[in-house]
């Protein structure tokens, strides 16, 4: 698939916007060990990438932006952090998959956001559990303890905690998707027309 100059510039600009958040706020939030930093960054980054999708309406463009962001993060001064790079790329893949299934619409953006923001919940199982060797059950135990503390439940009510965590992550994604659609609408009202299929061809 070939992108034209305008689309490549937009991919770079939206990748840069997402990258700026990841490099500055992301590094600070990780350093301060703020809970749910991954979810916060995923929701913000996906909002930007989904707005970008309105200006580069091609399958794969969100993934392209995620790729640009991941490279910016990789070469940032803060040092190499492998897990955020995995997170950014996986969020791009999931959002792209969501858009493929649900199309570019307000509902589609909300659904894609919901799918992609589930990744920060899954990521510890992959990075610590499988890659790190901590074991999936060990990570599950940690997630349950965190969830129990957050919702005021006991770790014994495992399923309820998992359900609430999934709902919380999905809700953040839905908000990110709706926010992206609203921002896109406001941008169009300001004269930044969305790129339509007809204009692109």
């Amino acid at each position: 698939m070939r992108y034209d100059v305008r689309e490549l510039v937009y991919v770079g600009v939206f990748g840069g916007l997402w990258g700026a958040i990841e490099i500055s706020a992301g590094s600070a939030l990780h350093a301060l060990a703020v809970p749910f930093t991954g979810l916060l960054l995923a929701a913000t980054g996906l909002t930007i990438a989904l707005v970008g999708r309105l200006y580069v309406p091609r399958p794969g463009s969100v993934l392209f932006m995620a790729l640009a962001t991941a490279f910016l993060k990789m070469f940032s001064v803060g040092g190499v952090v492998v897990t955020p790079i995995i997170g950014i790329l996986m969020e791009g893949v999931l959002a792209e998959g969501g858009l493929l299934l649900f199309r570019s619409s307000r509902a589609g953006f909300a659904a894609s956001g919901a799918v992609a923001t589930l990744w920060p919940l899954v990521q510890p199982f992959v990075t610590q559990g499988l890659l790190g060797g901590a074991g999936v059950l060990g990570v599950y135990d940690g997630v349950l303890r965190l969830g129990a503390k957050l919702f005021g439940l006991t770790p014994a009510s495992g399923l309820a905690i998992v359900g609430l965590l999934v709902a919380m992550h999905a809700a953040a994604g839905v908000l990110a998707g709706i926010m992206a659609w609203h921002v896109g609408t406001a941008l169009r009202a300001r004269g930044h027309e969305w790129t339509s299929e007809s204009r692109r061809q």
Partner: protein
Amino acid sequence: MDQREPPSMTATARAMMTPLPAVRLGLLMWSVVLGVVSSGWRLGVVFAGTLALAAVVQPGGLRVLRRPALWLSLVPLLVLPLFVIEPRDLALAGGLTVSSAGVTLGLSMLVRAITITVAAAGFSTTVSIRELADVLEAAGLRGLGFALGVAVHSVQQSHHVWTTTAKAFRLRGGFRTTRWRHGRLLLVTVVSTMLRRADETVAAAQARAFSPDRIRPAAARLSTPDWWWIAVLILIAMVLLVA
């Protein structure tokens, strides 16, 4: 007798020390993939191999080990399994008991994390973003190099626009009550500013008759030393996977 190395030998040695970016990407993948799938003595071999590679061809990878922040972030990997995994069969001073299986697991997690970190840091300090873009362009991701260049230039601008706009909002009483609406307005302002700048970049590129179709990634032919690297890495990987 002349004690100097033959000129061809020196050139080969120099070429061995400076593999192409594509080969460096291979070195990174080698460390990450084998670091993840290996355990026990195999993980030790990958760890030693990664450190040796870093010492020989990408010293930036070892410099990352001097950062206290890295060690601080690795401490939980080592300590948590000691107390989480049952049974706690090792008695320490002061009546403290830890798990012997936790010691093994913690150490392997630590070694794995250092392996991946050293490999990634070595890669990012020796390969520029331009070189990486060339590798990806050569791999068929057309235009990614140009988009990455734009991203690198716009990240500073983006940061500036984010901070100045947020400051302006706060000075005008923003984010105190209707956070959702003000958050949206902030994003609209930032993206609108960046889109205007993007249009300027597009105009400048078009004025220079730039076209993604004309991008030719820098020619990068693998030399004999590069093939040596590839052969050695594949051989070690096969030995580790089969043994």
